[in-house]
C-alpha cells in the first residue's frame, strides 16, 4: 500500500471574485521510502500540493490518504496531531525559532506531544542527528550565528527528530548557493537511505530534480510527468483517480 495517495485533488484560490485554480485534479501515489521530487516552474502548483500533503492546507476537492488514513474531515486538533506524529517539515526559509539554539530547535518538536521516542533516549537521538548533519561544534549557537546551509541542516535534523514517516521539503535549496544546495540534497538522500524515511521535496532546479528516484512534474496545476526509478507511471497513477471515482 502506498504511504501517500493523492486522489483527484483540486485547489482553487480566490482573488476577489476571480477563481485561480492552483491544482486542477491531480492524482499520484508515493511508496514508503521513496525519495521524491516534485518539479515544475513557478506557479505550477508544487508548493500547493506539498502544503496539502503536509496537512497545512485543505484541498478544495479530492482526497488525501496518508498511512492508510483518509485525512478528509479531520479537525484542526486531529490534523495538528497527525502532522506531529507522521510528518516532518523543511522550509525554504529554514523557519527556525530565533531564540532557541541548535540543540533546542531540534528538540522542540519532541516537546509538543507524545512521540515514538522515549524521553530517556531524547538526548542521545538529538546528539546523533546533530552529528549526522555535521553541526556538533555548533550545538549552542543561535540561528543568527549560522550560515544558510547550517540553518538548513538544523531544519533537516528538526524534521527528523520525531522519526516521522514522511519528510516534506519545500524548495529546501532555494536560498542556498548551488554547492551548498547539492550538499543538502545529498544529506537528505543519505538519511533517506539510512532511516528509510520517505522524502518529498519541491524544486525548480533541474540539477537537483534528477537526484530523486521518483520525479513528479507539474505544469499549470496538472501532472505532466511521473517517473519512478526511470519508469513512467503517469498512466498508472492516473488510473488511481478513475478507480476511486
Amino acid at each position: 500500500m502506498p504511504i501517500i495517495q493523492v486522489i483527484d485533488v483540486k485547489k482553487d484560490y480566490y482573488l476577489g471574485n476571480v477563481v485561480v485554480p492552483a491544482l486542477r485534479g491531480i492524482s499520484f501515489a508515493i511508496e514508503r521510502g521513496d525519495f521524491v521530487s516534485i518539479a515544475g516552474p513557478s506557479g505550477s502548483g508544487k508548493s500547493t500540493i506539498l502544503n496539502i500533503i503536509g496537512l497545512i492546507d485543505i484541498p478544495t476537492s479530492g482526497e488525501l490518504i496518508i498511512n492508510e488514513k483518509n485525512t478528509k474531515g479531520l479537525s484542526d486538533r486531529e490534523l495538528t496531531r497527525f502532522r506531529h506524529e507522521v510528518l516532518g517539515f523543511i522550509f525554504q526559509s529554514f523557519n527556525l525559532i530565533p531564540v532557541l539554539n541548535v540543540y533546542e530547535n531540534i528538540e522542540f518538536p519532541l516537546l509538543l506531544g507524545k512521540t515514538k521516542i522515549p524521553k530517556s533516549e531524547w538526548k542521545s537521538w538529538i546528539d546523533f542527528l546533530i552529528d549526522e548533519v555535521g553541526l556538533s561544534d555548533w550545538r549552542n549557537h543561535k540561528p543568527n550565528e549560522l550560515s544558510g546551509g547550517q540553518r538548513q541542516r538544523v531544519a533537516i535534523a528538526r524534521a527528523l527528530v520525531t522519526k516521522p514517516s514522511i519528510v516534506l521539503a519545500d524548495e529546501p535549496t532555494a536560498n542556498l548557493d548551488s554547492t551548498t544546495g547539492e550538499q543538502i540534497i545529498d544529506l537528505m538522500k543519505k538519511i533517506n537511505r539510512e532511516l528509510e524515511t520517505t522524502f518529498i521535496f519541491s524544486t525548480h532546479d533541474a540539477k537537483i530534480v534528477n537526484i530523486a528516484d521518483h520525479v513528479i512534474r507539474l505544469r499549470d496545476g496538472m501532472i505532466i510527468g511521473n517517473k519512478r526509478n526511470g519508469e513512467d507511471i503517469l498512466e498508472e497513477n492516473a488510473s488511481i483517480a478513475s478507480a476511486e471515482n
Partner: protein
Amino acid sequence: MPIIFKIAFRNIKAHRSKSLIIGVLLAMGAMVLVLGTAFINATEEGVRSTFSDVYTGDIFISGISSDGPVSLFGVTSTSGMATTPIIPEYDKVISIVKSTPHLEKTSSLATGFSQVIRENGDQETEEDSQKKIKPQDRFLFLFGIDAASYWDLFETVEIVAGEKLKPGQSGIMINESQFHKFSDWFEKPLSIGDPLLIQGFSTIGFRLRELPIVGIFRLKEQGTAPEQLAYIDIESLRVMSGMTVGANEPIQLKPEQTSMLSIEDPDELFSDDIIVTSETSKHFDVASISRELSRPSEIDPLKPDEGAWQFIVGKADSSQNIDRIISSLNKAFEKEEIQAIAGNWQVAAGPYGQSVDIVRIIFAVAIVILSIVAIIIIMNTFVISVIERTSEIGTMRAIGAGKGFVRTMFAAEALALALVSASIGAGLGLLIIEILKSLRIEATNPFFLVLFGGQYLRPIATAGNVIFAIILMIVVGFIAHLYPVSLALKIQPVRAMQEE
C-alpha cells in the same frame, strides 16, 4: 525550565524595544497605584483619626429615623428638616454599651443648630455689611455635652481663655475665630462671663437662651470640625431643641376650645361667637422681651428631659476592634428590640465624612481610565509583536504545536513581562514614598491638612496595596495580549508561513 518559559523570557529579551514600551507602561501603572493607594491610606487614616479624635469618636450610637440617615449633624433628609431622634430606652442602651468589650470610653451628647442674636433684634445694619459680617457667621453648631465624660474622651480642645465646661455648669464655649467675629459684631470686646443670646432651631420652633461665655477654645487638629462648633451644657441644648419633659404628653384642651369641633353647620364657623378679638399693643419692646426670655423657668414651664440624649460616642481600645464592637452593639439592639443603631466615625460625621469616599471614588475612576488606556497601548504593541512573529507561529503550528501551546506561550510572555515590570514599578513607588516621608512636606492650609491626613505628608503603603498593584498590572498585561494572539491563531499555518 519548561520550553514555554524559555521561549517567553528569551523573546522578551529579543524584542527589547517592544518589551520596554510594555514594561514601562506596566511599571508606571504599578507605581501610580502604589503611590495613589498610599496617599489615600494616609488621607483616610488622617481624616479618620482627626474626626475620631476631635468629635466623632470611633463608635457612634443614635436613634433610627425613618426620614434618613442620622449623624451628629442631624437627619439627612430629602424632604426638609427632620427631627433628630432621641436614643430610645437610654438606660438599656447604656447598659449594653458598658458591657460591650473593647469599648473604652463613652460619652453622651446631643446637637442642634442655633444663631447668636443681639438685643436690638436681628436686623442687619449698614455697619454689619461694612464689617462683612454675614448672617451665616452668626450660626453656631451646638454640642450639648456631658462635661463629666466628654473631655475625657476628646482631648483635642485647647483653651485659649476661660475654662472648659464643668459638670452641672450652664454656659457656652466658642471657637476663637467666632469669638473675634462676635466681638466685632457687638462692637465691644467680649470677655469670659459675658452673656450670649442664642436662638435655637428645631422642628417645633425657635427657643431663646442666654448663656455666659465660659471658655474660648481652638482645636489642636484643624480642618475637620466646622468653625461654628460650640459646646454648651446639655440642659440648655435640650431646652433649645425641644427635648423637654411632657413634649409627648397629650394636649388638654378647655371646653370653649373643643366646642368648635362640635359645630355641624360650616357657616357657624364664621359667626360672631367664634371670632375672638384681643387688644394689640402699639409698643414692641424687644429688650424687655429678651429679658423675659432669658429666664428659662418662666419661658419653659416644661422641664428638660434629663433622659433625652441623641447620641453616644465612644473610643475603641484598638482600631482593629471597631467593626467588632459595632457588630456586637447592633446585635444586642436587635435582640432587645431597641430602635437604636451603631456605626463608625463616617456615619457620625455624615456629609463631612464623605470626603474620604469622594477621594477614593475619584482615584478609582482615574485608575479605571488609566487601565483602559494602558490596555489599548499594550494591546497595540502586542499586535505589532504578534504580526512580526506570525511566521514563527505558523512554523510552530506546522510542526505540531496546537493552538493551546501557542496561546500558552504568549500568555507566559505577557505574564512574565507584567510580573517583572509591575514589581519594579511597585518598588519604585515604595522608594518614592520613603523619599516623600523623609522630605517632611508640610501642609500649608486646612485643605492639605485633610489631604495629608495630618501636618506632614506621610503616605502609608501596605503589603496589600503593593500586591494589589502588581496583580492589577498582571491582569492588564494579560488582557492586552488576548486579542492579538487570537488574531494570529485564526491564520492558517500555510498563510502564516507565507508572512515574512
